[in-house]
């Protein structure tokens, strides 16, 4: 497993105070996905993406992704100003096709994982992660 790109564990003191409202998938995220897939069709399923429903700390959100038989998996934070998070590449001898990391989220958004399978097809999973200012538990 090789990290080709990594913008993780960005531990900053200041919370992203402007980013409480949900963010939509932006053009940069679509571009990154298109560059990865070369415009090929992407089907849902076949990828397990584990993310918290509500982030305890938007600056360091644990994400785990796995896709049996994947050659590589790209992780996108669709609402971040720079959506690319990482692409994990798996060699032929890889025992498991699983990666976990922590990412910084600018606000509530979908985290998307695109897996390139050994046969060249693409599969997708996404998870909505809410970044909140905190509430009042009963």
């Amino acid at each position, binding site marked *: 497993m090789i990290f080709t790109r990594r913008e993780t564990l960005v531990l900053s003191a200041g919370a992203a105070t402007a980013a409480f409202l949900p963010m939509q998938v932006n053009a940069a995220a679509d571009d990154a996905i298109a560059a990865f897939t070369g415009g090929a069709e992407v089907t849902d399923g076949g990828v397990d993406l584990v993310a918290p429903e509500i982030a305890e700390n938007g600056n360091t959100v644990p994400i785990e992704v796995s896709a049996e038989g994947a050659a590589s998996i790209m992780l996108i934070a669709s609402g971040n100003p720079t959506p690319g998070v990482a692409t994990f590449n798996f060699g032929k001898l890889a025992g498991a096709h699983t990666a976990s990391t922590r990412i910084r989220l600018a606000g509530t958004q979908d985290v998307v994982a695109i897996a390139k399978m050994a046969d060249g097809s693409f599969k997708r999973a996404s998870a909505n992660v809410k970044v909140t200012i905190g509430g009042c*538990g009963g």
Partner: protein
Amino acid sequence: MISRRDFLQTTMAASALVGASGFGNWARLAAQQSLTQDQLLDFDTFGNVTLIHITDLHAQLKPIYFREPEINLGVGEVAGKVPHITGADFRKLYGIEDGSPSHYALTYNDFTALAKTYGRVGGLDRCATVINSIRAARPDALLLDGGDTWHGSYTCYHTEGQDVVDAMSLLKPDAMTFHWEFTLGSDRVRELVDGLGFPALGQNIFDAEWDEPSEDFAPYQMFERGGTKIAVIGQAFPYMPIANPGWMFPEYSFGIRDQRMQEMVDEVRAQGAELVVCLSHNGFDVDRKMASRVSGIDVILAGHTHDALPEPVLVGETIIVASGSNGKFISRVDLDVRDGRMMGFRHKLIPIFADVIEPDAEVAANIDASRAPFEAELTEVIGKTDSLLYRRGNFNGTWDDLICDALISERDADIAMSPGVRWGPSVLPGQDITREDIFNVTSMTYGKAYRSEMTGEFIHTIMEDVGDNLFNTDPYYQQGGDMVRIGGMGYRIDVSKPMGSRISEMTLLKTGELIDPSKTYVVAGWASVNEGTEGPQIWDVVENHVRRQGTISLTPNTSVKVTGA
């Protein structure tokens, strides 16, 4: 004194468990007779396993009054389903007669009048009597504590939970899970857990640094009772560091983690568990969703959202039991477990009528001994109330109206905010307000009352954020509290809308003008999750206000307009 008996008991045949026919008929006995302890405890012991569930005690060791909510809205798939049914609709659903003990225990209507008839509820010494009686019929019954136990009173605050831990230890629980306990700080939680003598469970309590299961809390405990192997899996409150101050327990991470819940169920089944019980602090709607996604859980003992349901709710082959709060109820669940599976159950939500159930002498003496050093402070009369003081309800309660009034007048603010917590007993019209009463609705380890300036836009953002914690249509995004209570400002909320467009017409009540997004307002509040919050303790603010008022008289709060329900 209590002139009527109605019975909260249901039985279901094994065939109904896997069928779609729902629950059987109520064994409803409307015979006119006076309510006795024997009747409250009456139960035909069934099957081979008994579970006893107590949850969300909030340190209420003594009997109290507790008014159930008038407004408890459900959104999305759970709209109009229990526990989002209140008042007369609730009584109709369960066949509860108007004016009956169950009416008083389970619904809000005529609360003051019925409270005078039926008296206080709860008291851990009464709970002990009920638990002992169940154990007399089934000596190896499992007693499971759903958490929110070591929080919520004057004595609990001043002893950092010790008074509750000591009293609970006499009840000999078999396992426990957690929420507000963590607001004692992680060092104190570990200290208390180390001395418990029974398992502290939470499959979703993780080490925050490594994102691995915490070594301080086991995910589950195996028991062998009645020749049956039982696994109890703990599920702590998932949103602890978000709804409560994470800086008080920075080593821990939580979350729902239902994939791991499935792994734990599979693991205990592989170890031979014939019955899988989840002791949960998820909140009812989260439990209902989890039951639909995790297979193999027989019983979820639900807490956190303080719902008291006279029947379990069935999801697939999982039953969800909700046992109320503040010591007001105990659930008894008898199960017939055969051939490695649950074949049937009998359930009873037992209301703890404090004047009917004899206190257990040993537990009563222990509670009194814990209170003795604080007796003068506890019982000091601060004022009196002409209005019923209660908290529960999605949008406001009179206790929070009083607290917001105190914040505005004592802290010279335009707007006041009070957290939408669901704990806090009621005080009847004509009663004195003691210091203990004020602590019962304000006690916490981060109770400082802040005073800060906020723009209208930021206030709107807060309202939308908290609103989404309550009215997100996906229960996994709900945190289980009620809406933040607002003083000095009215607003309209459409609960059916998505986040960002629920709240409108925010109006400053003292001028009648709409809130200006760019203008700055002075906001006083309490229970900030931010570290380093400065200000006087909220109970001192409220005490000063009540002293100045002498007698509290509140006008009905009509400042929140609710639509979309």
